[in-house]
C-alpha cells in the first residue's frame, strides 16, 4: 500500500493561444500510492482535466516528469508508450461524445484488445468482451447495441468496460459521473468502488463535485488556476481546510440538509483567465486574507501539518 505507483514531478502544460501562453497546468507535484484514489478537484478551467491527460501523455507535457513504477514515461517513444497504455487508462466525462456512434458495444470494448493484439482467436476476444461486460454490469443482450440506444448510465459503463478490458493498474477518471443523474451516479460510483477492490486499481479521480470526491478519495488535491493549492487526506481537508480557497470551496457546496448552520464564504469575482496570469499567488484577486506580499511570488506547496500540504504564505 505504501509503494508509490505514480509520481508527478514539476509537470507543466502550456498552450499557445492568440492572446498569449495559457498556463493550463503549472508545476504540478504529487504521488499516488498503489491501490489509492487521489481526488483532483477544482473549478472549470483550473487545469484538472489537462493534468489527467498530460499524465497519460494524451497531451504532450511541456516539461516535467511522470514517473510510473520508477520509470519516467515522458521519455518513452511511441512503442514503449503503447505498452504503458495497457496499464494506464482513462474514463471520460461525457458518455455521449466519448463513444463512437458508429461502433457497436462489442466493437467499442474490443478496440483496446484488438489494437494491442491481446488475443489471437476471435472466440477468446469475444469471451473477454462478455466477461468485461459482466464485470461492469452490462446485460449480455446489449452486446450488439449502439451507444445512442442506451441511457447515460449504461454508456458510462461501456466507457469503464473499455478502460478495464486491458486489465490496467491505473485509471484516470475524468469527471466520470458529472453528466449523470444522482441515482445513476451512485450506481456508477459503487461500480468503481467494486472494481477497485476486486482488481486493486489505482485511481486519479478528477471532479468538480466535492461530495463525490470526498466519497471516493483517500487523499484530495485542490487545484486553482493550474496549481495545487492544498493536498491532504480527504478527512483532513474536509475537517480542517487550511487554504482560503479550499475553505471557500467547501463552504459553497450546497448540502442537502436542513437545520445545519455553517458559515458561508462567498468569493468575490470570477476565476481569472489562465492566460498570462500575474505573478504571485494565483488566488490573490479573490482571497479574503490577501496581503501585498502575496503578489510577489507564487507560494510553494509546503507541509504544514503531517501529510497536509498547503500553498499559502500566510500559514
Amino acid at each position: 500500500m505504501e509503494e508509490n505507483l505514480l509520481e508527478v514531478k514539476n509537470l507543466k502544460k502550456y498552450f499557445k493561444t492568440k492572446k498569449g501562453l495559457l498556463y493550463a497546468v503549472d508545476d504540478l507535484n504529487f504521488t499516488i500510492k498503489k491501490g489509492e484514489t487521489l481526488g483532483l478537484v477544482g473549478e472549470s478551467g483550473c487545469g484538472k482535466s489537462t493534468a489527467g491527460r498530460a499524465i497519460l501523455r494524451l497531451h504532450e507535457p511541456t516539461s516535467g516528469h511522470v514517473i510510473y513504477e520508477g520509470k519516467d514515461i515522458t521519455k518513452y517513444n511511441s512503442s514503449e508508450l503503447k505498452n504503458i497504455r495497457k496499464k494506464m487508462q482513462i474514463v471520460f466525462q461525457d458518455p455521449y461524445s466519448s463513444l463512437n456512434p458508429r461502433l457497436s458495444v462489442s466493437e467499442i470494448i474490443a478496440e483496446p484488445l484488438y489494437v494491442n493484439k491481446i488475443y489471437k482467436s476471435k472466440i477468446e476476444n469475444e469471451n473477454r468482451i462478455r466477461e468485461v461486460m459482466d464485470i461492469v454490469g452490462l446485460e449480455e443482450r446489449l452486446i450488439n447495441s449502439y451507444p445512442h440506444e442506451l441511457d447515460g448510465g449504461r454508456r458510462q459503463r461501456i466507457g469503464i468496460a473499455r478502460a478495464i478490458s486491458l486489465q490496467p493498474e491505473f485509471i484516470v477518471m475524468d469527471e466520470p459521473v458529472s453528466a449523470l443523474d444522482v441515482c445513476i451516479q451512485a450506481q456508477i460510483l459503487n461500480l468503481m468502488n467494486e472494481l477497485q477492490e476486486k482488481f486493486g486499481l489505482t485511481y486519479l479521480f478528477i471532479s468538480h463535485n466535492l461530495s463525490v470526491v470526498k466519497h471516493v478519495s483517500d487523499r484530495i488535491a485542490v487545484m486553482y488556476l493550474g496549481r495545487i493549492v492544498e493536498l491532504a487526506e480527504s478527512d483532513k481537508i474536509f475537517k480542517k481546510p487550511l487554504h482560503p480557497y479550499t475553505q471557500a470551496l467547501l463552504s459553497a457546496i450546497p448540502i442537502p440538509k436542513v437545520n445545519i448552520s455553517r458559515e458561508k464564504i462567498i468569493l468575490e469575482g470570477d476565476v481569472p483567465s489562465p492566460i498570462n496570469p500575474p505573478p504571485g499567488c494565483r488566488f490573490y484577486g479573490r482571497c479574503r486574507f490577501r496581503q501585498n506580499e502575496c503578489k510577489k511570488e507564487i507560494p510553494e506547496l509546503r507541509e504544514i501539518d503531517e501529510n497536509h500540504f498547503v500553498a499559502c504564505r500566510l500559514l
Partner: protein
Amino acid sequence: MNDQKNLLSIKNLTIHYKTGGNIVHAVDNLDLDLGHGETLGFVGETGAGKTTTALGIMGLIPNPPGKIINGQVFFKGEDLLKKKHKEMRSIRGKEIAMIFQDPMTSLDPVMNVGDQIAEMIRIHEQITKDKALEKAEVMLETVGIRKDRSKDYPHQFSGGMKQRVGIAIALACNPKLIIADEPTTALDVTIQAQVLELMKSLKEKYDTSMILITHDLGIVAEICDKVAIMYAGNVVEYSDKNSLYLNPLHPYTNGLFQSIPDIEKDVDKLNTIKGLAPDPTNLPKGCTFHPRCPKALPVCSEKKPDNVMVEPNHYVKCFLYN
C-alpha cells in the same frame, strides 16, 4: 378551493408528446400549489417532466408534438390554459418570467446586454427607449454588474455574469412568479454560491414567488420553502422543506437522499435505487415507481396511489401511508 390564497395552483395537468407513433407521458395528472412569496423547489431526474411542467405553465409547449391533454393552471385565480395567445404574451415576461439553464445560449449574442434588458421592458411597458435603457442599467446594478457594462455583448461576460444578466432580464418587469430552470447547473460551485445568494436576496427584495427547477437537493435546502419531488411526470411528494428533509416519506425521495454522497459521513457503498427511470412512452401500471421500489406492496402494481396528507402540508402519493 384555496385559489385566492395561492398565487399558482395546478390541477390535473397532463401533457403528452407524440413521437413517431408513440405517446410520451411527459406530465401525468400533476397537482401543485404555490403561495405568494414562496419558493418551491421542483426536484427530479432528467426526463421526470420538470421542464415540461414549466413550459406548460408558460403556455410554451411546442405543439406539435406536445399537447396539453387535461388540467388547469390557475394563476391569480385565472386559468392560464383558457387564455388566448395574445393574453398569454402579455403575461409571459411581465407576470411570469423565466431564468434559463444555460446562460451561454439563452442570451442573444449579437445584442448588447443593456438592449436585451430594455427590450424586455419595452415589450411590456409603454416607455421610451432611453427610459428603458436607464431602467436596464438600474437592473444591471441590482444584480451586481457595473452599469457601464450595459453596452457590452454577452461573450464579454463570464458564465456567472451572464446568468446575472439572465436574472436581470427576468426581474426587469417585476414579475409575480419566476420560473428558474436549473439556473446554476452550468456554473462552478463558487459562482453558484454567488448566484444563489443573489437570487435569495432579490426574491426577498421584490417579493416574488419562485419555482426553482433543479436536480440538486442541496440547492433546494438552501433557498426553497417548499419542495415537490417529481418522478415520471408526477409529483410524488410535496411538502414544506423542513418536513421533507427531516422526514422524507416516499421511497423514491428516500432513495434520492441516499444516492447523494454525504460530506459528513463515510460510507463504503451508496444506497441506490435499482434500475432506471421508466420509459415515458410505456409507463408501468399502477404506481410508476413500483418496479424500482424496495417497499412495493401488491396493490402498487394495480392502482395509482392518491395524494395523502400525512402531516400538515406534507403530501405523498404512496400506498404505504394510506
